[in-house]
């Protein structure tokens, strides 16, 4: 730090720290501005939103929030999203857990080939594949498997497009479990399934939690798949409902703020509780993969 060579070491360090905190706090403020503006907006009446839109809501008006919360439609959106999220998460953990175990722990011919097939999925995100996927759903519809306009269809697509990444994450975690445990379990008379069920899964609980937390976020936030697959409004999920609501009340900024705030709060609360799992899943997937 050439700027402060004449200062004693502790003062140099102190200056650098001040500088660091200054920049970081600025970024913190920037991070919070959109969220704070949103929350302010959600606590205002429509009139207030026009007269002083970004001022502190004083006194706070809860009318818009209450109006939304008392609509059965809002709770139906919530309910659909929750159901979809739980189903997708259960599906992803189940499907990827099994496959990742095989890739991490067992040997068979053409294993590398099959594994590479799954990694192909990493290259084709759902946003790119949505139209082709829609064709296939339609085709299955014509064959008598009703996947269009059904939460089952959304769920299956969400699972399918989360397979690649999560197999990779879980395989990383499963490989890290010491091979001695596997040997010991075989010596004690376990077969592969016993080892998987009694030894590996209990040890891998944090990994499964990470994958589950990650999938919950992805499924909960997903707008594109429900948008394309679902038609009838009684099946809509929360993001889809938000989009519709914004289209309908776009001019009423206070109302839109209230709706968006209400639909963000569950995510933020979940994040505060599951931050560790989300982060460990993401970093494991990206840093090891």
């Amino acid at each position, binding site marked *: *730090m050439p700027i402060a060579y004449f200062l004693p070491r502790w003062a140099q360090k102190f200056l650098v720290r001040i500088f*660091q905190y200054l*920049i*970081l706090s600025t*970024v*913190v403020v*920037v*991070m919070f*501005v959109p969220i704070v*503006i*949103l929350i302010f*907006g959600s606590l205002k009446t429509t009139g207030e*939103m*026009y007269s002083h*839109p*970004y001022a502190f809501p004083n006194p706070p008006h809860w009318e818009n929030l209450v109006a939304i919360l008392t609509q059965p439609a809002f709770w139906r959106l919530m309910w659909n999203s929750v159901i979809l999220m739980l189903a997708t998460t259960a599906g992803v953990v189940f*499907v*990827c857990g099994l*496959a990742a175990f095989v890739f991490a722990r*067992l040997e*068979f011919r053409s294993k590398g080939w*099959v594994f590479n*097939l*799954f990694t192909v999925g990493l*290259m*084709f*995100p759902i*946003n*790119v*594949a949505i*139209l*082709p*996927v829609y*064709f*296939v759903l339609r085709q299955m519809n014509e064959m008598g498997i009703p996947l269009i306009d059904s939460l089952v269809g959304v769920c*299956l697509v969400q699972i399918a497009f989360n397979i*690649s990444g999560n197999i990779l994450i879980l395989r990383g975690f499963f490989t890290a479990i010491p091979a001695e445990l596997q040997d010991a379990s075989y010596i004690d008379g376990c*077969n*592969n399934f016993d080892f998987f069920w009694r030894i590996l899964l209990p040890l891998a609980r944090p990994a499964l939690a990470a994958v589950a937390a990650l999938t919950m976020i992805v499924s909960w*936030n997903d*707008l594109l798949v429900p948008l*394309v697959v679902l038609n009838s409004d009684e099946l809509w999920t*929360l*993001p889809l409902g*938000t*989009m519709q609501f*914004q289209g309908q009340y776009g001019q009423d*900024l206070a109302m*839109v*703020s209230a709706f968006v705030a209400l639909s*963000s709060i569950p*995510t*933020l609360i979940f*994040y505060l509780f599951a*931050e560790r799992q989300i*982060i460990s899943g*993401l*970093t494991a997937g*990206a*840093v090891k993969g």
Partner: protein
Amino acid sequence: MQQLPAIPDILKLKRVSGAPRRFQDSLLIVLFLLPALILFLLFVIYPIFRSIYFSMFDWNGLGPAVDFVGLQNFKDILTDKVFLKAISNVLLIIVFSVGIQLPLALALAVMVGRGLPGRGLFRTIFFMPYVLSEINVAIMWMLLYNPDPDRGLLNAIVTALGGESIGWMSNTDIVLVSIFIALTWKYFGFHMLLYLAGLQNIPLELEEAARIDGANSFQNFFYITLPLLGSTIRTSVYLSVLGSIQQFIMVWIMTKGGPVNASETLATYMYRFGFVRFQLGYGSAVAIYMFILCLIFSLIYQRLTRRPDYLTGL
């Protein structure tokens, strides 16, 4: 003294002993892989081939596709100015992301570093937007971007500073930058997270040794930290580029690709043709182009990252 068989021999013994056991093992492998394989083949791989088929038709989705046009769709796309605009926009977003967003994330990660008091809190706050849904983030930023300085915070600040209010989402020169700012707000925390995890893996001793040898902070960063962070940086570049190619929801909600296609991306272009105009054959051809783009990029990435171990960092 009796000679024990070498370890590989023991393994071989286990293999041959008992055919039923072997059958059981194969059965388990098949059963465990089956659910993933079925879903994956049906909803990820098969659609690619299905859309290759449809891309050769002029088809509006009603009735079967009968109007075979060969590669006409692919030709038409390449001569469509809007498509070229979408490509150039995606390239711009990639350049912005890799040139601005990632360095910003890296700088903040280094600043938060390993031992800064409050490190966890900063990480929690910077990463927070990542978990919010894209549509909610898009709407939040639309509130801020409101052109009327009496309603939108950003223009209120601009006019208070003596400037003229900016058409954040209506000015064709600015709209892409506005979207990029919102994208950065949402996604830089994710890349910072990766860098923080990467930094954690660099042994402290290396930086200490360099410092003892007289390296200052900058030398330390450019000659120790950055090279050792190589594999993490490559991963984050890869994810960032792939994310930019497929950017959809934020753009669609904020501008629908407008005004006058100024913020069109490949994904909005495909969505418009596939799900708004129902030119499904044409839309499929766009999807194929996007597949090819992702594929080429991934192959280049894999070629570049297949390096000797001592270069891939720790």
